[in-house]
C-alpha cells in the first residue's frame, strides 16, 4: 500500500452511513452495471456475513440497487432507490445467506437483461469504500475497477493472450496489469486487463475478431 491518494483519505464523497456497507455496496453494483452493458430487467441480490446481518440499518440494499441504476457513491437518489426502481420498472429482490466461508462483506448480484442475457457478479467490500470483484459467472476472478478494466470472455486456447496484447498495443494502450482466470485448462476463461488510461472502443472490436473470444466487457475509469 504505497500509492494511497489524498482523496482516499479525504474521501470518498458518499451517501452515509458506512463506507464499507453503503459506499462499497454502491461501487460494486455500479461495476456490475457497467460490465453488463445493457438494459436491465431484473436484479437479485444475495447478501452474506455482516452485509446479511446489518444491511437494513446501513442502507446496503438501497445502495446496491442505486449502483445497479448507475448512481455514484455521492448520489442522493440512493435514499429513494426502491421508489425510483419501481418507477422505471426495474424488478429486484434481496435474500440473505447463512454461508460463512466468504468475506464478511460479500454480495452476489444476479442481473437479467431485457433481452434475457444474464450476468452473475460476486463483489466484496474491503473497507473505506474500496471493493473488489471476486467472481464472474462461474469463474473466480480478482479486480477492483480502480483502473480502466477490460474483461475478455474466451476459451482457454493458445494465442488468445497474444492476440489481446497485440490488439491493445496497436491502439497504444499501456497495460498496467493482466491476468488470466480459468476453471480448468482448455475451458471457459476470463482475461482481465487493467490500464491507467481509457481503453478505446476500437481495441475491443479488434479483440472480438479472435474466434476464441466470445465477449468483451469494458469498465472505464
Amino acid at each position: 500500500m504505497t500509492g494511497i491518494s489524498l482523496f482516499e483519505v479525504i474521501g470518498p464523497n458518499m451517501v452515509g452511513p458506512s463506507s464499507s456497507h453503503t459506499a462499497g455496496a454502491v461501487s460494486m453494483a455500479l461495476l456490475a452495471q457497467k460490465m453488463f452493458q445493457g438494459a436491465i430487467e431484473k436484479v437479485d441480490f444475495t447478501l452474506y456475513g455482516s452485509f446479511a446481518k446489518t444491511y437494513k440499518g446501513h442502507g446496503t440494499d438501497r445502495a446496491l440497487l442505486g449502483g445497479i441504476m448507475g448512481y455514484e457513491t455521492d448520489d442522493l437518489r440512493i435514499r429513494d432507490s426502491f421508489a425510483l426502481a419501481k418507477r422505471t420498472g426495474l424488478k429486484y429482490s434481496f435474500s440473505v445467506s447463512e454461508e460463512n466461508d466468504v468475506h464478511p462483506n460479500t454480495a452476489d448480484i444476479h442481473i437479467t437483461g431485457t433481452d434475457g442475457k444474464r450476468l452473475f457478479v460476486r463483489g466484496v467490500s474491503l473497507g473505506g469504500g474500496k471493493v473488489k470483484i471476486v467472481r464472474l459467472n462461474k469463474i473466480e476472478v480478482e479486480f477492483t475497477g480502480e483502473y480502466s478494466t477490460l474483461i475478455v470472455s474466451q476459451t482457454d486456447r493458445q494465442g488468445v493472450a497474444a492476440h489481446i496484447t497485440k490488439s491493445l498495443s496497436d491502439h497504444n494502450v499501456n497495460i498496467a496489469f493482466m491476468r488470466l482466470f480459468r476453471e480448468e485448462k482448455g475451458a471457459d476463461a476470463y482475461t482481465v486487463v487493467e490500464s491507467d488510461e481509457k481503453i478505446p472502443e476500437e481495441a475491443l472490436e479488434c479483440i472480438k475478431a479472435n474466434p476464441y473470444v466470445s465477449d468483451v466487457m469494458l469498465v472505464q475509469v
Partner: protein
Amino acid sequence: MDFRSGKELLELCVQEQLPISQVMKLREIELQETSEKEVNSKMKKALNIMRNAAYDPIKNEVSSIGGLIGGEAKKLENLRVEGKSLCGGAISKAMAYAMAVLEVNASMGVIVAAPTAGSSGVLPGVLLSLQEEYGLSDDQILEGLYTAGAVGYLLMRNASVSGAQAGCQAEVGSAAAMAAAAAVEMMGGTPDQALSAATGAISNLLGLVCDPVRGLVENPCQNRNAIGAANALINAEQALAGITQLIPFDEMVQAMYHVGRSLPFELRESALGGCAATPTACNMNCPSCT
C-alpha cells in the same frame, strides 16, 4: 515527491522549505499525474460537502435510519446561542458541527469520509469552527485539508483507519490526529508542531474500542466525533504553546496499530462488546446476535 513516515515528511518540509499542506499537494499532483487546478477543485468540492453536512442539521432536523440519533447538533447550537456553553466558542462549535455531520451520515445524506464515514464529523467540525472563530479564509481551510490528508495518509499506510481492524482509535483517533495537525498549520504553527499535535491526539485515544449499538454508525459514534474534535483542538493548542511530545509521531502510529490489533474481535465493529453488549443495547434487537 513522496514520503513514507512522519520523519520523512518533516525532512521534506525542511528541505523544500514548504508546509505539510504543500508537500502533500505536490505528492498528489505527482502521484495522479494531474494538475494543481484539478486537485484544488476536487478539494473544494469536498469542503462544500463538509460545510453542508455540518450546517444543515442545525437548520433542518434530520432523523437517522436507525432512529438512535437526531437533533443533537441543534441542541448544542441552542445552548451556545443562549450564552450557556461551558466549553466556549471553538470547542462548542466544533462538537456541534462534528455531531451534525454524523446526523447527516446516519440519515443517508452526503458526507466526505475523512478518513471514514464513522469519523467524518471531526475534521469539518474543527476546521469550520476555527474558520468562524478566527476569520480564516476558505484557502486556509483548504490548506488544512491537505495537511490533514498527509497525516491520514501516513496512518492509512503505516497503521489502519478501520474500526473493524483497529477499533475506534483508528477511526476517530486518526480523524483527531488529522484535524489537530490541520489546526496547527492553519493557526501558524510549524510542521513539527503539527505532527506533535497529531501524536498527542492519537495517544489520548489509544485503546478506544469500536462498539456500535445495533451495529449502526450512530451511537456511540456521534458522541465520539465530538470528543475527537475537542481532542484535536486541545492538542493543537498544546503544540502551539510549545509543548512537545515524548514519543515521536511514527512510534505513536505503530503503538496505535499494535493496540488495535490486540483488541479482541468483540471490540472491533462487531457490535458484540462495549456499548453494543450492554443490556439496553441488546434489548434493542441487535442484528449481530440474531
